[in-house]
């Protein structure tokens, strides 16, 4: 085996990854080549140093408390979403088509969840009959509700964190932040009302997703900026 070939095999040789057929000629070459022998020595020294690296490092003491508070917030949000969904179900004892029910759940439960500080808006809910006439629309909306619940959960979690950190922000900035969140919430409400009337409209779903992304992104950015301030 030539030097040119062997030098590309030295890493595998030191790591023990060569088959016996390849290992023997490499070993023979190392015996007569000072350059490759020196390289093997260096790789083995590096391996010894790496083996001595600590495999575990204690994380900062406060790390668990922050994880725990997120987990507990998740649990609170889940309970709230599930409570609002059940109360809506109880209010409509008559049989509803699956799509119509989804529209009702999304429009009332989801809206009230994130618009905490406002009076419950009058939300236009598409009558069940209109929704069941459009199975494709029902499928689109059904897929979106999963995504929407994720957004709602994430926004609620971040909003909680931000509430605790508000003291770090100047009052003018807090006012601007609240103004921005109101603008986004208004846009979400408009888009959701429109989607309730036109549940198969993919463009509306994408627009609504975009508005949710704005909200989550704004909350996340502000939380990150204030966390390390």
């Amino acid at each position, binding site marked *: 085996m030539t030097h040119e070939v062997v030098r590309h095999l030295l890493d595998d040789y030191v790591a023990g990854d060569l088959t016996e057929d390849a290992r023997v000629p490499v070993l023979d070459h190392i015996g007569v080549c000072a350059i490759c022998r020196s390289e093997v020595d260096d790789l083995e020294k590096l*391996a010894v140093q790496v083996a001595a690296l600590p495999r575990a*490092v204690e994380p900062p003491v406060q*790390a668990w408390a922050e*994880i725990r508070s997120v987990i507990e917030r998740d649990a609170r949000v889940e309970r709230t979403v599930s409570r609002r969904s059940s109360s809506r179900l109880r209010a409509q004892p008559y049989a509803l088509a699956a799509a119509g029910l989804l529209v009702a759940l999304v429009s009332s439960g989801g809206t009230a969840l994130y618009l905490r500080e406002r009076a419950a808006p009058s939300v236009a809910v598409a009558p069940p009959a209109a929704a069941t006439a459009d199975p494709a629309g029902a499928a689109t909306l059904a897929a979106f509700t999963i995504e929407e619940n994720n957004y709602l959960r994430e926004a609620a979690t971040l909003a909680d964190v931000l509430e605790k950190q508000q003291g770090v922000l100047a009052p003018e900035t807090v006012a601007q932040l609240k103004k921005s969140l109101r603008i986004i919430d208004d846009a979400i409400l408009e888009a959701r009302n429109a989607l309730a009337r036109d549940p198969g409209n993919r463009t509306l779903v994408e627009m609504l997703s975009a508005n949710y992304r704005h909200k989550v992104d704004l909350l996340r950015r502000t939380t990150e900026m204030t966390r390390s301030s």
Partner: protein
Amino acid sequence: MPAKMKMLAVAIKDPADGPGADDVRRAQAGDVDSFEQIYREHSPRIYALCLRLMAGDAQSATELMQDVFIRAWRRLDTFRGECAFSSWLHRLAVNVMLENARSDGRRTARVLPMEDTGKLPGAAKSSGIELSMDLESAIASLPRGARMAFVLHDVEGYQHQEIAGQLGLSVGTIKAQLHRARRLLRERLER
């Protein structure tokens, strides 16, 4: 002839049954205190991995580690015991790191290789790594691709195929990155 050295990390014992497995089952049922036990047992390994993946940036490593455990909590029901829990958690850590790097197009290449930051007066955080500052700093200074391949293979003991699968690259590319990492480390440690 010098003996070959296998650069493998020491595997953490993770019995199929026993107190660790009980905690996992209880946590899957929603017991946060059991999840805290899981955190206490596994977080030092995960934090060390995060620290090296994030080039020694303690703050980013802490955030990454927290993200890993939050995701682990949310996805606990997807752990079916086909592998050791620590392996599942490790893979999650690498996936989370890759996702964070991809999100919004930002790359962790902008994570800064810091040297001697623990010595800055008033510095609130320290890396917690007390041994081998030279080697740790050298690993932190590697280019991102080389650093990831090196940490996962040489430090954590993943096989080439596993790393290639997780990073979405070919085995050849992983090997090339490893070769590059070792060469750069040897150069930097010689200085």
